């Protein structure tokens, strides 16, 4: 096992996702907001799936939401994730918009106590030097 195997994965940033990760570095959660219909979208893409407009801005969101679905990871093929087991990860619906979902590790709750609809707030974890990723903390 080489040294990199015990490091967290570095996001494979794409042109359209770059601003998301840049905002995370500043501990801000930013999403694309369509300039035409005003709807948020995630994950990043060039055109609005609702109105097809390609005009958008990266906008701060509150970072509050609720749990849509979750799992408890007990086994992972990635050594770094295996070391962290058991952990809860899932998908959160943001407060600003029904149907806008962001995945992330869910913290601050025992695995057996997680329920759908629980309120969460975003927090940030520096997983590698210069890499900050969003996590969700149960409120």
């Amino acid at each position: 096992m080489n040294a990199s195997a015990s490091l967290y994965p570095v996001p494979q940033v794409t042109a359209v996702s770059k601003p998301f990760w840049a905002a995370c570095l500043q501990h801000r959660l930013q999403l694309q907001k369509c300039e035409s219909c005003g709807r948020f979208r995630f994950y990043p893409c060039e055109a609005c799936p609702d109105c097809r407009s390609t005009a958008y801005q990266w906008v701060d969101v509150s970072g509050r939401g609720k749990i849509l679905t979750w799992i408890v990871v007990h086994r992972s093929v990635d050594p770094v994730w295996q070391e962290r087991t058991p952990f809860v990860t899932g998908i959160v619906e943001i407060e600003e918009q029904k149907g806008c979902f962001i995945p992330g590790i869910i913290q601050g709750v025992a695995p057996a106590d997680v329920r759908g609809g629980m309120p969460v707030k975003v927090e940030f974890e520096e997983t590698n030097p210069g890499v900050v990723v969003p996590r969700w903390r149960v409120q």
Partner: protein
Amino acid sequence: MANKPLAAIAGIGWTDYTRNSGRSVESLALEACHHALADAGLPAEKVDGLASFNLGDSVVTSVVATNLGLPKLNHYADFAAGGFMACGVMVEAAMAVSAGLADYVLVYRALNGASGQRYGGFEFSRMLAEHGVHTDAEQQFLDTAGITMPAQEFALLCRLHMEKYGTTNDDLAAVAMSGRANAADNPRAQMRKPMSLEDYRNSRWVAEPFRVFDCCLQTDGACALLVTSPERARDLKKAPVNIHAGFTATGPRNRGSMWGNFNIDPTTTYADLHADRLFERAGIKRDDLDFAEIYDCFTYSIIGQMEGFGLIERGEAGEFFRSGAGRIDGRLPINTHGGLLSEGYIHGLNSVVEAVEQLRGEAGPRQVKDAAFGLVTAGGATQTGSAVILGRH
């Protein structure tokens, strides 16, 4: 009375399904292809079409064409795709034949899925993101959230089904136990010993709500099928099996390996949108089905798809399987070979092979009596999938 078929399956072949083949994927692919040709009684040089799919773990059609010494290919297709393409490659071959693009198309899937390239892990998802079907922005968000394995993605969907319909782990156990019981009479199956409810409950968690017995068997092996026109098939050795209808289809906004499942009710599947058209094209009703081979990368996949195809009511799966309805002699036998959970994971194409054996009446002790129509699906309770309806000659 079914509609005129698109094409026919004239030959099937497979290798042993094992945990460690000790051979190259190329050699597995060739063995399966040669078996399919021998089964049909067709000389290799007659093959003028090839189709396959892979996730960076197989040999592409040009390699197989070279090894088979084919004089030329009139049609070929290499899909960079997951198991949702397992029936899609059959559709591709059927379309090529019915459009007159090629006369004899070999379809195969070959992999060392246990001893070679395994699925999961962020190195694998990086490969997919850079080179594969999921060349997209999705993987970076899943990798960093600890979601790097198919079991985790499907467990997220299963959880929602549990919340909405009260589905339980014992329901998942009933799915797994039914397939395992069917596998007892399948010499190809890797897991033939019956599974008890206790066995299921004692198996370790992988991604709660999934235990290890909710997950299919990563497998080394290959299988192949020969597709041709119904007319040409009649001149070959075995009774043809007709391909009456098929699709390779998705729901809305079906981007990425997982994200596309969350744009409409995640407890629904591609089947909800596409089943009616499939049965209409085939010219049969759901009640005409004598069995179904439902893609079971995970136990829950069977539940979501059976509901979507309208084979059971929503939330009824546990009761269906506990009652024995999915057994060989049941109301609608499901995964007569034991499925990917018990036979093995040749990425779903092995379920098409099983359906052909059933429709030829060659399935021995696990033969469904008078099997005339079978449904085969590919895609795991997500918004992307493929399917075929096959019929006895």
